[in-house]
């Protein structure tokens, strides 16, 4: 009897020790939140997420305005960079009649025609461009005219001229996201036919009206789509102000636009400095919020709806400055600061992606594609600007499935930014940005699986342009980032699953 009691006690002790061990290793990730253990100041620590690979990957891309250049040379750069999505239609989408290829101004008599579909129009050029890039399309239909049938005809046109999905057997049509209008809060001619517009039309559409519009567009477009209800519908974030919630079943994702700066060359404000650009996404600027606050506000709005948690988020237009239509942008926007801003924003996207949670971030596209300063390509020459080097680094080497990551206080203070992810082969990778323009910083990585570690990075050259993409193999867990260096470290070994998944 005494022996049995001792044996029972021993078993109980063993089970207790095992439970303590599992708890310490973090296997019970679903338990109540605990305060994070203090990290040494210069450490970047990766966490593990057993669901990371099951979530929709986070894709980066570019948004192509109707007036953007769509040269094959631009497509080639984007293809080489591995850009995953391209969006058709920026702020001009609701002024554009896709069936005639004409755009309209504030009066019906003010129009410009640049080619109908089938006659080398803007839509034909976009589909050709998307095929050259090899990216999934997002197409914005004209919502302001309040004509669901023209949008349905556009779906039918796409099905006849679609981009084949080369990665799937039978090369079926690649299924785009279809977005219903852009920036409805700024519409001035709602429900007025394009050729009948007048300056005095000025009419602001209310969120409930926009919600009803989205539902009717979705119904008409899904009716003609071969895949029916699987057609992916995107609505502008204006819809989250609606009191009615019948739209939540119709919508796949919400589109939000983010630009922290708003500079006007004729205003009294000084030209934004490099320091302003470096801190803008992280802290906000001039009363405009940070990207973290921006996304968290949007999720809060979506949480008002009882069925809103499944809806994804896409940042359909991001740029340094909201004054994206400006033709005279400060030269500082076109310099290396552009690359650091883009990398900084991508780090935040990965940190804010909320995989497995409500309203995951699905994708982000930069807009516009070409222009005079902050755009990834120069309009006059089609030559790439610094942001394209970040796409080449992130899209090629960084994973699309976000992982949790912790950053030591010391690194945070000196301007090191970091995000972690796994790729489709479950290889862990870390995106690292040294936003300090003048000093190198050394950091130590923890939580990476054993295995050879590849590091790709670039930094500014002597002329202040992005230097070439460089590569090395790391043996230890410490590395030093040069001033303004942007790097991806990838472990050529599968990320181990947490204990409970084994």
């Amino acid at each position, binding site marked *: 009897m005494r022996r049995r009691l001792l044996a029972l006690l021993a078993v109980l002790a063993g089970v207790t020790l095992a439970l303590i061990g599992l708890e310490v290793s973090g296997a019970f990730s679903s338990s109540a939140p605990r305060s994070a253990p203090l990290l040494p100041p210069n450490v970047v620590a990766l966490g593990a997420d057993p669901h990371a690979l099951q979530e929709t990957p986070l894709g980066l891309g570019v948004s192509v*305005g*109707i*007036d*953007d250049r769509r040269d094959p040379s631009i497509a080639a750069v984007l293809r080489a960079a591995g850009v995953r999505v391209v969006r058709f239609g920026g*702020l*001009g989408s609701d*002024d554009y009649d896709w069936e005639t290829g004409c*755009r*309209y*101004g504030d009066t019906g008599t*003010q*129009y*410009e*025609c*640049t080619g109908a579909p089938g006659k080398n129009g803007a839509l034909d050029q976009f589909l050709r461009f998307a095929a050259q890039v090899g990216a999934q399309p997002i197409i914005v239909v004209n919502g302001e005219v309040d004509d669901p049938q023209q949008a349905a005809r556009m779906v039918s046109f796409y099905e006849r001229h679609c981009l084949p999905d080369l990665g799937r057997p039978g090369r079926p049509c690649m299924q785009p996201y279809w977005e219903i209008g852009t920036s409805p809060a700024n519409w001035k001619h709602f429900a007025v036919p394009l050729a009948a517009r007048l300056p005095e039309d000025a009419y602001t559409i209310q969120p409930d009206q926009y919600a009803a519009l989205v539902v009717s567009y979705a119904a008409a477009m899904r009716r003609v789509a071969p895949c029916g209800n699987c057609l992916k519908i995107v609505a502008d974030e204006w819809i989250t102000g609606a009191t009615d919630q019948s739209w939540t079943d119709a919508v796949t994702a919400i589109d939000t636009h983010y630009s922290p700066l708003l500079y006007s*060359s*004729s*205003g*009294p404000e000084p030209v934004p400095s490099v320091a302003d650009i470096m801190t803008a996404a992280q802290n906000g600027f001039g009363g405009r919020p940070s990207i973290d606050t921006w996304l968290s506000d949007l999720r809060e709005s979506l949480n008002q709806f009882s069925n809103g948690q499944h809806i994804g988020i896409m940042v359909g237009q991001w740029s340094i400055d909201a004054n994206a*239509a*400006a*033709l*005279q942008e400060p030269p500082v926007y076109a310099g290396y600061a552009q690359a650091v801003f883009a990398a900084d924003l991508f780090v935040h996207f990965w940190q804010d992606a909320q995989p497995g949670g409500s309203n995951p971030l699905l994708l982000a596209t930069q807009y*516009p594609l070409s*222009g005079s300063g902050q755009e990834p390509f120069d*309009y*006059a*020459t089609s030559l790439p600007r610094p942001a394209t080097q970040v796409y080449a680094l992130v899209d090629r080497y960084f994973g699309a499935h976000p992982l949790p990551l912790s950053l030591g206080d010391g690194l945070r203070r000196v301007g090191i930014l970091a995000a972690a992810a796994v790729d489709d082969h479950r290889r862990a990778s870390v995106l690292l940005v040294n936003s300090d323009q003048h000093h190198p910083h050394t950091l130590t990585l923890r939580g990476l699986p054993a295995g050879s570690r590849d590091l790709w990075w670039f930094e500014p050259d002597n002329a202040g342009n992005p230097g070439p993409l460089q590569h090395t193999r790391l043996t230890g867990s410490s590395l030093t980032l040069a001033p303004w260096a942007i790097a991806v470290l990838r472990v050529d070994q599968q990320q181990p699953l947490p204990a409970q998944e084994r």
Partner: protein
Amino acid sequence: MATIMIRRVCAILCMLAALGAAFPLTAGTAHGRQGRAAVVVCGDPANQTAFQTGDTRVLVCPATVTSGQLIRFTVHTRRFAAVSVTLSYPDSTSSMTTGSANRQGVAILEAPVQYNPINRYVKAQFTVASTRLGHTDEVSGNFTIAQAAPLADVQLLARPRYLDRWCPAAPESCRVRDNATVLIRVQSTAGAQVSLSLQYPDGVPESCPNNNLTGTAFANPTGVYACELPVSFPPKSIGKGVQIQIIAQVSAGGFTVNRSLPMTLVIR
């Protein structure tokens, strides 16, 4: 003797003719031109785009031109050919410029772009026709028009008379003492209509002379409108300082922009 003299005169005239042909007094390039602004970027070959049909070759510069600016066509064709350039805009309107080639067969035609796009950029078409002795070569191509934003560079500046530098560039000039005179300057385009007022903290506006709700003034030929206003407010309402606003509305070519400039009014 007379025959010799005639021969000498003929020889001199022949030499002068030969020298004239070898060293012409001008470059001899024929120009057809409208508008005033010069195309300053065409010295760089990177800004030129070449098109060719038959014996006629056309260099277009710049490839992207801002509305209202000149686009230059350098046409290499038959000598003395009549040359015309037609710009066709996306709203179906067009404009034409004509000229003729010189003895080297070169014509340089510059034409103002008379179309302002609805958005940032739009593509337009040009057609160059070169005609000589009943034979016509036509060269067509595209160029890009960038939207001009009239009044985009309007600047509103102000300073107390007792300081030399302008607010907002010099922050110290954005503070003005009570009972001082404020010099206000609006930089826009020649002939722009300017409406300007100074607003006190209690909402009472003070307009520049001849420039109130019933009358406006115009910028001078260099685009400057200037005015002086004495500033006076009860000292007990000023306390440690109150904000006054200078508000300008500038209109030109159907466009209107508003600018405001806050200043701090202090007792001393």
